[in-house]
């Protein structure tokens, strides 16, 4: 694909001194990714990043589910920004795409409607006694990794290449809808041909797969997942994407959105149970990685340290392809070598874990 248009959509990404805002979903489902991000920035790249224990959820899920009203979320977001200013930072980076979308949307809202900014300033002060502030630079954490992709490439221990054949790995990149579909200028490469993940993949030796449903939503859709009766819509979207990408035989999917990672991963299990369909090679699912996990593997992190045992679809086939050395049996050992429990075998993972790896308990 001749992606030329991404250069038309450039944005300023701060080089150092970030204030970090976590993601609700990732903290729970991919906690290793956020930890890896902090480690990569501070240890590998030597950048300053502040993980503030005072910050909260942006309440974006509640907002998009019609539970949290606009004035409330504006105040919550203003508090986040205020915390950042108090901590002495002006570069805000958010781990969550929903949050990133919210922050972008609200900053634009305040720009367009100064009276709302005024109301928020007042509400923030009344509620918390804090001073209103706005970040100088707002970036999603994938933007930050994208920004440092060349440096990471220089320090790479592995490349996104099949270690046995030397062929580049075929990667499906999936961009969260709220990354650039609301404000195309806020994303690298715009909304039609976002380059934020593709840039990383290409820099690190992989090959990006462009498939018909590339732009399509993963199906999370807030209300569509949260109400059980609507989940049929939610899964139908993932189903559509997986059907569309599977003929390209991708080695893995990488996403920059917490919801997408979760749904593209876990719906594979659901679809396998409902229809018996799996989309990956050898009857398995397609591993779904976060960009931090992808960067972590490239930088030589241990997959279990990256939290990849939390995935629904087993990542071992991918690790094998990349030639990464790891202890298969240590998969379910936690930080202190303590057994954290092992999920049941699922259709989506064709091999029984116990027998294959002699999981240590």
């Amino acid at each position, binding site marked *: 694909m*001749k992606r030329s*248009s991404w250069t038309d959509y450039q944005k300023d990404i701060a080089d150092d001194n970030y204030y970090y805002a976590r993601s609700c979903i990732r903290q729970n489902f991919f906690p290793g990714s956020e930890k890896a991000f902090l480690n990569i920035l501070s240890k590998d790249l030597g950048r300053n990043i502040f993980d503030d224990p005072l910050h909260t959820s942006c309440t974006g899920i509640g907002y998009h589910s019609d539970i949290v009203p606009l004035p409330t979320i504006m105040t919550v977001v203003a508090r986040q920004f205020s915390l950042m200013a108090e901590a002495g930072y002006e570069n805000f980076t958010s781990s969550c795409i929903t949050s990133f979308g919210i922050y972008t949307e609200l900053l634009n809202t305040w720009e367009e409607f100064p009276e709302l900014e005024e109301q928020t300033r007042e509400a923030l002060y009344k509620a918390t006694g804090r001073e209103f502030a706005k970040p100088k630079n707002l970036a999603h954490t994938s933007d930050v990794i994208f920004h440092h992709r060349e440096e990471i490439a220089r320090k790479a221990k592995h490349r996104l290449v099949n270690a046995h054949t030397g062929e580049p790995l075929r990667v499906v990149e999936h961009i969260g809808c709220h990354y650039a579909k609301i404000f195309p200028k806020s994303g690298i490469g715009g909304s*039609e*041909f976002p380059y934020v993940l593709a840039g990383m993949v290409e820099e690190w030796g992989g090959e990006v797969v462009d*498939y018909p449903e590339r732009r399509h939503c993963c199906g999370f859709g807030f209300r569509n997942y949260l109400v059980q009766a609507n989940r049929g819509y939610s899964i139908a979207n993932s189903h559509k994407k997986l059907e569309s990408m599977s003929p390209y035989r991708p080695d893995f999917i990488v996403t920059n959105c917490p919801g997408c990672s979760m749904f593209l991963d876990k719906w594979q299990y659901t679809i396998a149970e409902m229809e018996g369909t799996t989309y990956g090679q050898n009857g398995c699912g397609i591993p779904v990685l976060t960009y931090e996990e992808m960067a972590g593997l490239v930088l030589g992190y241990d997959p279990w340290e990256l939290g990849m045992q939390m995935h629904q679809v087993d990542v071992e086939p991918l690790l094998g392809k990349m030639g990464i050395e790891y202890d298969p049996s240590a998969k379910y050992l936690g930080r202190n070598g303590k057994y954290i429990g092992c999920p049941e075998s699922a259709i989506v993972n064709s091999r029984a874990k116990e027998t294959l790896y002699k999981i240590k308990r």
Partner: protein
Amino acid sequence: MKHIVIIGGGIAGMQCAVELSSLGISATVIEKEHATGGKLASWHRLFPSFTPAEDVLGELRLKFAKAANISLRCGVTATEITPRKVTLSTGDELECDAVVLATGFTLFDARIKEEYGYGIYDNVVTSADLEDMFNRGEIVLKNGNKPRRIALLHCVGSRDEKVCQRHCSKVCCVTGVKQAIELKEMFPTADVFNFYMDIRMFGPGYEEMYREAQVKHNVHFVRGRISEVSPTIDGRLQLKAEDTLTGRPLKMSVDMLVLLVGMRANEENAELAARYGLQCQESGFMKPQDNFMHNVESNVEGIFYAGTITSPKSVGETLNEATTVALRIKDWLQKQ
């Protein structure tokens, strides 16, 4: 003898010069390219009669060459324009009695509608590219095969707020239907789909051509704008649109997508307006005094407009308007 400077050597400028000459007024045509003819020079055939553009342009060029008191300056631009004097990029100064602006339009750059993948995917072409292919007499896909299914998308860069083009470019619908017929004639077994928002068949013979495309050539018309184009694994293009007449989303893959690009006002129009006290319309096209009795006169005495500088027009309308300009100038000069 009175002398007029015409800026733009497209069909409007040429026709205007020819008509002025026949009224006993001399004219100089300034053309920035190295040849006359403007956009028509690269067009293949004209709707609704499928007349070769060459025939029209050939006749016009012949008249232009034969007409007395016309001089042509190619490869130069006007740097300073006043009703009585035009300064050229060469530094030459041309004294005159009035100026005609016939600088035409800019073809919409389909790259801006990036969701259609022009310049990104193979086999996404514009209507102008297709005319070029017709001129070469060869329509093939990048892999050398013949297309089996072709889609034409109307209103690319027209009636689209997202690209700041609110206006209708008028000629693309008719062109789309014409090209669909031409494609069907070249590839009778191919499926041709036109995706449109409205079909605007405003002129004589256009509606008849549309009906012929439907009934005789079995061109499919789907009312709905394509939302996105993506590649398929076999190198084709997948389109998504809503079939609004059934209220259902629709997707299909095609071998070739033709984007019917609209007419955009020249970037320079704003500058012209600012520098010489002229007026632009919201669409960016120049604004004549009114749309009726003074539709070719600018608000500046002695500066006239001809052709698509004021709005999208078909070839026939442009030629008519250029004739009108000559008559109005004569009239105006007599009143001076």
